[in-house]
């Protein structure tokens, strides 16, 4: 078993050349041409999802969107190695992970359209409600892993988080607990070099992967734009967890090629040159080159991938614009599992209040209608001036 690896692991260069690695190759030896093609397709599809969702946001159909542009290999390479009975705890940016877990596309959109605080049922796809509170989910993943251990199953939990998250106390406490209980959890850190406007160098003056071994958690620092390296490292970590050997920390070095979210303007804080540098390391491009070198990147193949991406984008768009608005009184649902007298009273109060409008509207009372329209206007004014929700 590979223990802590200090060297940067890369199996596929930006130029699309496979570089041999005695330690890691065995973990991706099953990745044959069809698999590679399928991984490529997934990456293209999720990039298309990003584009489509960004367009939907610009068109006012979504309140916000956090693109994962540039992180396709990190997310797909890792998520595709998981089993259905593994469980994933993520932040807000892991839409490609959700895609691999088999999410219904509309469920991705609910949150960003403002319809719901979450999309999918976690138990349907083995993926928790995303955590916007930075780092919090690493503890959830650790606890879930302790549960798997206690259940005597070899399921693994995976925590996805960013470079910025490593500064939060919670992430460090998660390492402490995971080490103490040898929990079957994989800490998958996507170092995309930025936490909104803050460069990774502000969070850590040493490589992030160096942090974990001191806690007793072996780590690997890998090229996160290399889908083969990502798969190999994740499999090593999963195997360690499944076989009772505890947690692993993976630093997938990648790059957030887009803004933090659609509400962000990265030109305020980062160099155009840096982005150019990373464009050359694009995770999709290198698989394209590899496929090409294998004679697989045919026009027919490309057309097939494009058709799939277009279909997914269309489905996403359709799901988005046809999503019905939530019912007003659903605002009171799912706060508690059983009736709560105080809340029920508030719901009754509001139900009667809404009904009074209908009653009064029926009477076509001028002053009330006036007041209602003033409200609507001021609420709109607010959302326009404030510009919508950030993360």
């Amino acid at each position, binding site marked *: 078993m590979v223990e802590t690896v200090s060297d940067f692991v890369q199996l596929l260069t930006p130029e699309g050349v496979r570089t041999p690695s005695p330690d890691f190759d065995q973990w991706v030896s099953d990745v044959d041409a069809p698999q590679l093609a399928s991984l490529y397709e997934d990456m293209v599809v999720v990039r298309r999802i990003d584009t489509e969702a960004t367009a939907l946001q610009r068109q006012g159909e979504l309140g916000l969107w956090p693109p994962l542009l540039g992180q396709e290999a990190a997310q797909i390479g890792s998520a595709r190695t998981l089993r259905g009975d593994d469980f994933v705890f993520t932040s807000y940016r892991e839409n490609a992970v959700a895609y691999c877990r088999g999410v219904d596309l509309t469920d991705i959109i609910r949150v960003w359209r403002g319809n719901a605080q*979450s999309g999918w049922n*976690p138990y349907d796809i083995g993926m928790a409600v995303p955590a916007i*509170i930075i780092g919090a989910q690493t503890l959830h993943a650790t606890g879930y892993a302790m549960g798997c251990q206690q259940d005597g199953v070899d399921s693994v939990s995976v925590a996805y988080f960013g470079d910025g998250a490593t500064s939060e106390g919670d992430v460090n406490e998660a390492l402490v607990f995971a080490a103490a209980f040898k929990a079957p959890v994989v800490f998958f850190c996507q170092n995309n070099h930025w936490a909104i406007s803050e460069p990774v160098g502000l969070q850590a003056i040493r490589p992030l992967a160096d942090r974990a071994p001191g806690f007793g958690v072996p780590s690997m620092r890998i090229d996160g734009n290399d889908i083969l390296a990502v798969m190999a490292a994740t499999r090593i970590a999963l195997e360690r967890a499944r076989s009772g050997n505890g947690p692993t920390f993976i630093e997938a070095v990648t790059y957030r090629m887009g803004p933090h979210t659609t509400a962000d303007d990265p030109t305020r804080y980062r160099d155009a040159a840096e982005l150019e540098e990373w464009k050359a390391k694009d995770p999709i491009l290198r698989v394209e080159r590899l496929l090409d070198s294998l004679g697989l990147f045919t026009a027919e193949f490309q057309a097939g991938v494009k058709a799939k991406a277009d279909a997914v984008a269309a489905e996403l768009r359709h799901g988005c614009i046809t999503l019905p608005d939530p019912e007003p009184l659903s605002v009171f649902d799912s706060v508690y*599992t059983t009736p709560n*007298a105080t809340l029920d009273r508030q719901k009754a109060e509001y139900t009667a209040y809404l009904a009074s409008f209908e009653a009064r509207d029926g009477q076509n009372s001028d002053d009330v209608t006036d007041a209602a329209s003033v409200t609507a206007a001021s609420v709109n004014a607010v959302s326009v001036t404030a510009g919508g929700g950030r993360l």
Partner: protein
Amino acid sequence: MSTLTLAKAINAGLRRAMQDDEKVVLLGEDIGALGGVFRVSDGLQAEFGARRVIDTPLAESAIIGTAVGLAYRGYRPVCEIQFDGFIYPGFDQIVSQVAKLHYRSRGAVKMPITIRVPFGGGIGAAEHHSESPEAYFAHTSGLRVIAVSNPQDAYSLLRQAIANDDPVLYFEPKRRYHVKGEVAEELGTSMESATVVTAGTDVTLLAYGPLVTTAADAAVAASDEGVSIEVIDLRSLAPIDYPTIEASVRKTGRLVVTHEAAQSGGIGGEIIAAITERCFPFLEAAPVRVTGWDIPYPPAKLETHFLPDLDRILDGVDRVMGR
């Protein structure tokens, strides 16, 4: 069952819950070999093993955060926070995760987590060891908050709390851990309901946790002076059992609320506002609060000048009686 101290009653409740449901696991600092600094979990690790009675590293956010993960996995974690003042490092996980995840997941995920907190003063302790943080949690939508006052409730309400699919903050009056009482192996009335401790007709006196006994003592003392006090043990601080309080206040027209927590923003104010809304025509005087002051918990030698006691409660009764 038998005569037990309040601490032993909690111990019995934990044991029974663990026997009944193997998904119940305990997490906390020093709860294993030591049995907790108050010995509340005494013997449980020996009985159920270190996998179900988990001595955790020293990190409260992680205690709560891993409990969230365990709940995701179908467990019913019972977390011990060693003292009231040490709950704040876990506040974020409680407020943003434990309280909200059922809502955030549109009902898909349940958080049947019980967080046990020894609370309140009166034991001459060092700073951060005598706090009453219950109002923070009662203001946090998605949580249920319980405070027990006697061994029977300690036992019954703990079992209800653990069995409940909502997260419950369960406050234990640490200065009453050693007080004994009969404990029957029963679940009793719903943990959401308040209890009338002594019936009365002149004044409704609300208390919870450590001050219930003091309130009952006040009722005895006042009756000597011809004032009939109805003492209600709130038991549930979120939600509050307003029907029981309303029925009492409609009868008495006078309300006194007592708690150790600082007055501003405490449970007392909330109840007075809610009861004023609901019973205004019945009120014969402004409701009165007898509470801790708006100060950090004071040093041990000053705590009697902070804590509501029999005299201060009687003084509050005098005030609401207009005397």
